């Protein structure tokens, strides 16, 4: 399939019509995807846009008689590098810096000016340059593109290849060194953790969110005995994202219950120990979820 995509040039150095169609379609898609990288609110979307651009590039490589590079592009870039990006995104997590709000004064205008200027200047350079008639790679590729490339890489550029190999090893070791953390404190075992928790007196842990049977109600904070919402009962991620629900509405409902509107409802007496974990309604599954979350934290 790849070889069938490869097209040859006309004598005037112009491409075939098929290639032109492929180019225009891909060019539009790639520029739009690159715009996604520039404008996407979420880092994952940006990464996915970049994946689109890279795959498009792989197609263009193949279209330009460079099938080996096209494959490498897909394998190395889209397959390895972009996956690495996604892993790091997962590790770092949601961050306030994802927003597009500009914090540096005038930076956005400077950036726009620089970007447009770059486009204009580069286009100017490209436009003013004089190219001879395009030669095409039919002769150079010979039998096949990978073979011809291999002759070059392991021939004229063998030394550069060795150097790049050393570079890769160095980079790998460097990455290990950079991300390695020396343990400064003794390892905290599960036993030590549970002992500490028993000694701290807060056996039940942090309060769980007030989970109501209305939607995925992890976003509703729990209420303390005075009816005030407890902020830390909601997951940190939800709080950072601003997806927290307003607790006052639920507090008002409880007030109504306490004032006796629901005459049949009898509230169990509050004990001193349940003060920190006074979720109005909790079931076992919620508690399990909560302890999971705590373990993660």
């Amino acid at each position: 399939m790849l070889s069938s995509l490869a097209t040859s040039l006309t004598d005037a150095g112009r491409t075939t019509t098929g290639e032109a169609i492929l180019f225009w379609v891909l060019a539009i898609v790639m520029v739009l995807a690159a715009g996604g990288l520039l404008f996407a609110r979420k880092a994952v979307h940006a990464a996915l846009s970049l994946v689109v651009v890279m795959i498009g590039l792989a197609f263009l490589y193949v279209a330009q008689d460079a099938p080996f590079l096209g494959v490498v592009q897909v394998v190395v870039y889209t397959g390895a590098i972009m996956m690495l990006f996604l892993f790091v995104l997962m590790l770092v997590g949601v961050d306030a810096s994802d927003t597009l709000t500009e914090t540096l004064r005038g930076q956005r205008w400077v950036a726009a000016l620089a970007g447009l200027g770059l486009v204009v200047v580069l286009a100017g350079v490209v436009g003013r340059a004089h190219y001879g008639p395009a030669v095409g790679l039919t002769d150079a590729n010979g039998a096949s593109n990978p073979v011809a490339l291999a002759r070059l890489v392991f021939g004229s550029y063998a030394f550069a290849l060795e150097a790049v190999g050393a570079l890769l090893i160095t980079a790998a070791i460097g990455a290990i060194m950079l991300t390695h953390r020396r343990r400064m404190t003794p390892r905290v075992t599960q036993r030590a953790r549970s002992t500490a928790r028993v000694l701290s007196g807060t056996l039940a842990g942090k309060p769980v969110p007030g989970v109501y049977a209305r939607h995925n109600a992890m976003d509703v904070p729990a209420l303390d005995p005075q009816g005030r919402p407890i902020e830390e009962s909601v997951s940190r991620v939800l709080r950072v994202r601003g997806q927290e629900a307003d607790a006052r509405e639920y507090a008002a409902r409880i007030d109504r219950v306490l004032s006796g509107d629901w005459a049949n409802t009898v509230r169990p007496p509050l004990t001193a120990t349940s003060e920190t974990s006074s979720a109005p309604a909790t079931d076992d599954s919620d508690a399990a979820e909560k302890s999971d979350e705590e373990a993660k934290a």
Partner: protein
Amino acid sequence: MLITGITTDAAWSGAALAPWLVGIPLLSAAVLLLAGRRSDRWGHWLGVLAPLASLVIGVVLLFSMLSVPGGSRTATVSLGRWIDAGTFHLDAGFRIDPLSLTFVLLVTFVGTLIHVYSVAYMEHDADRRRFFAYMNLFVAAMLLLVTASSYLLLFVGWEGVGLASYLLIGFWNHNPVYAAAAKKAFVANRIGDVGLIVAMGLLFSHVGALDFATVDAAVPHLSTGAVTAIGLMLLLAACGKSAQFPLQSWLGDAMAGPTPVSALIHAATMVTAGVYLVVRSNAIFTAAPDARLVVTIVGAISLLFGAIVGCAKDDIKKALAASTMSQIGYMMLAAGLGPVGYAFAIMHLVTHGFFKAGLFLGAGSVMHGMDDQTDMRGFGGLGRTMKITYFTVMAGWLAILGMFPLSGFWSKDPIIEAAFVPQDGQTWRAWVFGLVALLGAGITSFYMSRLFFMTFEGKRRWTTKTDGTPQHPHEAPALMTVPMVILAIGSVGLGAFLAVGDRFTRWLEPVTGPRGDGQAVLPGWLLITLSLVLVIGAAAYAWTRYAVAEVPATPPVGTLVTRAARKDLYQDVVNDAALVVPGRMLTRSLVFGDRAVVDGAVSGIAKSTVKVGDLARKVQTGHVRSYAATMTLGVVVLAVVVLLLGS
């Protein structure tokens, strides 16, 4: 210094002993200073022996010198080549002639007596050994000053006595006032020293030599202007050392030192070094009438100045210090008169050395008996309790008054008479200086009588000691009274001994030349009568005011002149306004200039650098994206430039 052995051209034997004059006290001072506390027990006796040994050498030299006729008495003793620079050669040598030998005998004789006196006077001072070390150092330096054969070696001694004076004025330097007085004396002396240095520089450039013999021989060939300049510079030096107007302000404060110091250094010897310098340079001054006139004027002013100040001082030592200044004014006046007065200047110097030292020692004895009190208003009637002191001071008092036949009469009246001799045919000078000298004699009589009567006559005005116990005035021990008695004998008889048959004048003739002839504008018998009448009248007036009448314990407000005189005629104020304040202004403006211009340039550059850096700092936001934006814009601009240039 290369010592090739002592050589001498003396026509008389014993001249080779001359270096030991200086050497023995110097050695003694070194021993006392280096041995430290170990020599505390016997150090003061070594200190007494050193000037005594010098005195013995001096006497030996005197008799040896007297054995030859006047013309061949001058001898030079060389220690060898000292400075050998190109065409300039200078020997370290001693010049022993009647003038220097006179000083040697005065310094060692009075010095020995004062050393003996000090043994008792300083008995209770923990640092008596150090005191004697400094005193010996002074004697050595003073002897070097008067025996040196060149201006340069004289300068060494000159500085030596300045150092010793500084050390001894500030001997009790734990008292900041005394330490300041020492510093003041030192600084005032330095001003005079500049004069001596400049004079030596002028001599070097005009004569090319600094030894007395060569200079004296070369002076007649010099221009009057050069000789006058040298003379004036030497006068400046003399003014500094001898506390003459206008460098007199330090002498009163110098009384901060122990009384024997005041007696030896600031009355009898060191302060007369200026007179010595003028007389020693008589060849220069004889050739420069204008410089001599200035010397006379300075002497006349100092004479009156000191006398007026002396009338108002209640501190017995400060009154004596003012008197010293006044008496040295007489000597300067005489020296300024030229050949007619050189011998009398030195003669008055010698007799003054005796009676003023005696007076100071008497004052020390009074202080000894009165718990170191110096205010004369707290004395009175002491003559009945301190008989020996009373009579010795009386001898000094009558001598300084110029009473016939005591020493002062024989030395001071010739000066007054000489002052009445017209100089260079100008009679107005004779009248002016003569009348000043005569008037000075009258004022001297008044203030010295005031001092004497306030201390020894009249009612007892003693107060309590500093510790509150009543005063018990008592006579000093024999170690103190014996020197006083010997000095009193000198005060009484020395003048007649020296003056009879012009003995002293002829003795000095090899140095000062023959005494010039001159007819005074008034006959001699009239002058003597006038001065005696004036002196007795002033003394009688003082008797009525300070012996018969009550002396108030607190000084009355007094007239304008009295108040000015108490403040030393505002000499400190004038010095302050004329020198200290402008000097301070100059240094301030220099400091300001330094800060504004020099520092301003330096720190201006630094500040502008900082400001530029501050501006540049704003560019450095620390944000990677700003840097990246700058880089990108730079690339764009570069590319645009390349594109435009490439077309």
